[in-house]
């Protein structure tokens, strides 16, 4: 399994580097530096503080994911289990879901300050919907047969949550988190371009302004590495928590 993962990572990296080289040669200018120059710059920057920018961004994403799960999962389970709650609240969810939350960053900054809070809340406001809807739909997909079967065993409400509902929705929540990671990195990048001097988004934009494209691409590389680490962590968690999901893929 680990060998396969390593093989896939190397294969994926080679494809990205090949396309990157193509774009580098096609552009024929410094705006797209060569992969080897960006990789070398990344290793140089490791000793010059890029790790701090990565750590700050990583913290913001992890906090946003954590709070989105804490808010979205219980709310989604409640909407999935209660027809009344679903009928009352789902329209509100559908109305607020498509609002471009990035436009609210100035409002969050005024209300929550220029620090981490406003950036974390902005990411939460974008990704909480995916997690909430995944949890709600996961509950709705539980078959009546399975629910009656479990009820016939004499499970009480708490036990039904513990043995039926949570395990049934867990793979769907993890999928939603996987999608949310990609989105949260994009939102984070946007949020870190305003009123901050830490974070990988700031680092990239700062180097862009200084026309230092090699370091800018090293920053993009750092962002990708952060994304890969989050995805790998989530894959590992899914294999530990939901081993039955992988039976058909073995």
């Amino acid at each position, binding site marked *: 399994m680990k060998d396969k993962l390593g093989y896939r990572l190397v294969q994926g990296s080679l494809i990205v580097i090949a396309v990157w080289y193509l774009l580098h040669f096609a552009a024929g200018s410094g705006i797209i530096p060569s992969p080897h120059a960006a990789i070398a710059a990344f290793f140089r920057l490791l000793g010059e503080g890029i790790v701090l920018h990565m750590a700050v961004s990583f913290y913001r994403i992890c906090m946003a994911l954590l709070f989105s799960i804490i808010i979205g999962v219980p709310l989604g389970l409640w909407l999935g289990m209660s027809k009344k709650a679903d009928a009352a609240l789902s329209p509100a969810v559908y109305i607020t879901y498509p609002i471009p939350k990035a436009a609210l960053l100035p409002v969050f900054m005024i209300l929550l300050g220029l620090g981490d809070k406003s950036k974390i809340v902005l990411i939460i406001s974008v990704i909480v919907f995916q997690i909430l809807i995944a949890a709600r739909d996961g509950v709705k997909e539980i*078959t009546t*047969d*399975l629910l*009656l*079967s*479990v*009820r*016939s*065993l*004499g*499970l*009480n409400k708490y*036990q039904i949550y513990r*043995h*039926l509902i949570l*395990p*049934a929705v*867990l793979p769907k929540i993890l999928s939603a988190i996987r999608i949310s990671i990609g989105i949260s990195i994009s939102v984070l990048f946007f949020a870190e371009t305003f009123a901050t001097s830490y974070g990988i988004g700031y680092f990239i934009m700062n180097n862009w302004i200084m026309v230092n494209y090699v370091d800018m691409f090293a920053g993009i590389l750092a962002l990708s590495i952060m994304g890969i680490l989050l995805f790998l962590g989530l894959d590992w968690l899914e294999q530990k928590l*939901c*081993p*039955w999901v992988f*039976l*058909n893929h073995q």
Partner: protein
Amino acid sequence: MIVTNELCVNYGSEAALKNINISIPEHSTFAVIGPSGCGNTTLLYALAGLIKPTSGRVLVNGLIVDGIRKQTGVILQNHGLLPWKRVWQNVALGMKVRGYGKEEINQRVNDILQELDMTAHKDKFPAQLSGGQKQRVAIARTLVTQPDLMLLDEASSALDEITREHIQDLLLDIYKKRNITLVFITHSIEEAVFLGQRILIMGEGQIKHEVMNPWFGDENLRLKPEFYSMCTEIRKRLKEGD
């Protein structure tokens, strides 16, 4: 003894069961057969306490059923096994939620898995089992709680013919070894004749016929001409019910 008095169940304005009166003696088997949508699954749900009657009542051993009864074991269509629990955990679930101690759960789950020849599969997930094996696990999960009444909804409908006969043999063996009442829904005339001491023929939410099966209990019944004559009789009764 299971008794229903003027049992009616409506889904909205539609009547699924109309004035059902049945009486099933203790330690007997009772087959319910009829076309799809005739109300047989609704009858089973009402006996299990999974749905509340619109009117009338269900009594088991003299007590009104108004919810899940701990001594009733239910096997619904598609086995009802939890995909995220291994065989052992699925079988143990009923005992766990009833608050049995760890040692007793271990002992009884291991015993029942051995009895049903499923010990080798105890660490597998349901998705790794064949249809017949899944049905054995569902039976084990029910038996481990030592029920006095077992309700089965089309227990073998999704199985191939050979596996189906194995499961029917197993159910007959379970019935003979235990003091248990077996009520099962089936669409198979052969299954009703092999496993049903009494056979209830339903149609449009009503009882059409109730037939006594004098050949019930013979493990080799399928090899005998009486079996086929009984199947023919049930088939005729079913046609009359149309």
